[in-house]
């Protein structure tokens, strides 16, 4: 635990690292303020009357995407310490203490989990304040607990996913490039930069097969459940379903709408597979 505390302190004191971990999220907020919100509101206005609840619903769509991205970018940022320790040989210093390589590696994973959880929770509170400030309502207790559960899954998935990626990297330069790639691609792969329906078929499939995007879907479902009912109360069910599919609130794969439990299975399955593969990679790397 002492190493985890150290890792956490080192990450939090590096303000630049924290800023870059949140950079892609900041970009999404800017894009949203500039055109994403308007684009979505315009699209919905074609099928129903614009009400204040509509704005809330669209805002909820945004925050669900943001929260799933924050889990990935902050956990990836946390692994920066592992790469730095490796490159500066600080790990050699830890290895002169009675610690195994596996324990040291586990300390980075736990730190990523903690950093991801803290930042996701702070972001959730910030998002709730934003929704209330723009005329929406707070999540019900049930939904709030549900969101916390999904966020925990997101952070767990992101921690394992980034652990897997970081095992291929051994220099800070390469890690910085990895961060840029992940930060850029993530917004697309979670259907945050561009709504799913606006993309060509192959890109839609790519997103739906990208496990992290399932956390976005789960979050959108939970955040938007009440507001979708309110906004689309006088709209035919088929229009509502079209909206949900086009904006990535549900996934339609080969004519079937994927259930929440399918998304959870995808997430948990990916966590297990990536954890096993990462352990094997780690063992091979330090054989």
């Amino acid at each position, binding site marked *: 635990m002492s190493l985890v*505390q150290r890792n956490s*302190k080192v990450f939090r004191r590096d303000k630049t690292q924290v800023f870059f971990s949140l950079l892609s999220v900041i970009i999404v907020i800017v894009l949203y303020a500039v055109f994403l919100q308007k684009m979505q509101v315009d699209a919905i206005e074609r099928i129903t009357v614009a009400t204040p609840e509509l704005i809330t619903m669209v805002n909820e769509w945004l925050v669900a995407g943001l929260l799933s991205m924050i889990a990935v970018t902050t956990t990836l940022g946390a692994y920066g310490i592992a790469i730095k320790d490796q490159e*500066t*040989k*600080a790990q*050699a*210093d830890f290895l002169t203490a*009675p*610690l195994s390589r596996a324990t040291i590696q586990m300390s980075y994973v736990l730190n990523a989990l903690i950093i991801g959880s803290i930042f996701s929770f702070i972001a959730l509170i910030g998002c709730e304040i934003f929704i209330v400030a723009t005329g929406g309502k707070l999540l019900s207790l049930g939904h709030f607990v549900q969101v916390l559960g999904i966020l925990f899954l997101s952070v767990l998935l992101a921690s394992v996913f980034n652990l897997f990626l970081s095992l291929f990297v051994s220099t800070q330069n390469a890690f910085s490039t990895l961060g840029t790639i992940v930060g850029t691609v993530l917004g697309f792969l979670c259907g945050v930069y561009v709504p799913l329906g606006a993309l060509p078929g192959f890109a839609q499939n790519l997103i739906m097969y990208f496990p992290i995007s399932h956390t976005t879907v789960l979050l959108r479902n939970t955040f938007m459940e009440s507001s979708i009912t309110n906004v689309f109360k006088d709209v035919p069910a088929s229009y509502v379903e079209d909206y949900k599919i086009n904006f990535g609130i549900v996934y339609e794969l080969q004519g079937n709408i994927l259930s929440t439990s399918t998304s959870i299975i995808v997430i948990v399955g990916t966590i297990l597979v990536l954890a096993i593969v990462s352990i094997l990679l780690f063992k091979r790397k330090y054989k």
Partner: protein
Amino acid sequence: MTFAIKVENLCKQYGVHNAVNGISFTVEQGTLFAFLGANGAGKSTTIEILCTLLKKSSGNVTINGFKLDVSNDNADIRKSIGVVFQQSLLDTRLTVRENILHRGRTYGLSKTQLAENYQFVSSYLHLDDIEKQKYGTLSGGQKRRADIARALIHRPTILFLDEPTTGLDPQTRQFVWQAIRQLQLETNMTVFLTTHYMEEATVAHQVLVLKEGKIVAQGTPDALKTKYAYDSMAVVFNNPLDGAKWLEEHAITYTEKQEIYTIRLESTLQALSLLKKAEPLIASFEVIKGTMDDVFLHIMAEEGVA
């Protein structure tokens, strides 16, 4: 005699290259052991093996009675050694105190024990004035004090110092050495040192010189100086021509540079008899003791390196 370190026929190979080639030596407990060699001689490889950071290819290593085992983490050995690396490896954004305490906790020390140990190392290394400063803001000398404190926080019985004073000013080097020597004498700690400053090796109990993965010289500094270095005397004559003539008449070999005549001495006392004989001719003189630098250069030259 108790050995803190016992190395028997140690080998480390990288492919076909033998970085360490069957070396054997022992380090007596409570002594200062200087491990010397030119760059690429195999010093760092050996130290990394002794510190459990690198797996040996073959041979036996026993540290504090624990046999080095390539198949596990050698926790018993790690608990009993402290390592000061060449580079500064502590976290730049943490304070000195935070750095040392975080590292100390990895040894499983209780809070009380850790606090006691911190007080102990702090008193030797005068950490009071820097403990609240971030490590990244410290000067080179202050960093080294913190590095040594980190290596000592669990009170090891063997301290490995890998070029600990490289890049430090003379005053800081002196301070660092005073602290290490004091600690060593008071706690009977074994110090295993690599350095490029040969005068630091002069105070060692034993010196070992490594070249191309093999031991080329070993002994006390005095024994090595006797074997590989010599004292000399630099003389300035009132009249250089008369001086040179006198040296030649007495069949004394010398070298001359800018009218300073350097004479190789068989012993320091030989200077006295020479001075008595040539006193009327001499304007000034200086007796120069053989140094570990001479030893090192001589050994390297003998082996065809210098």
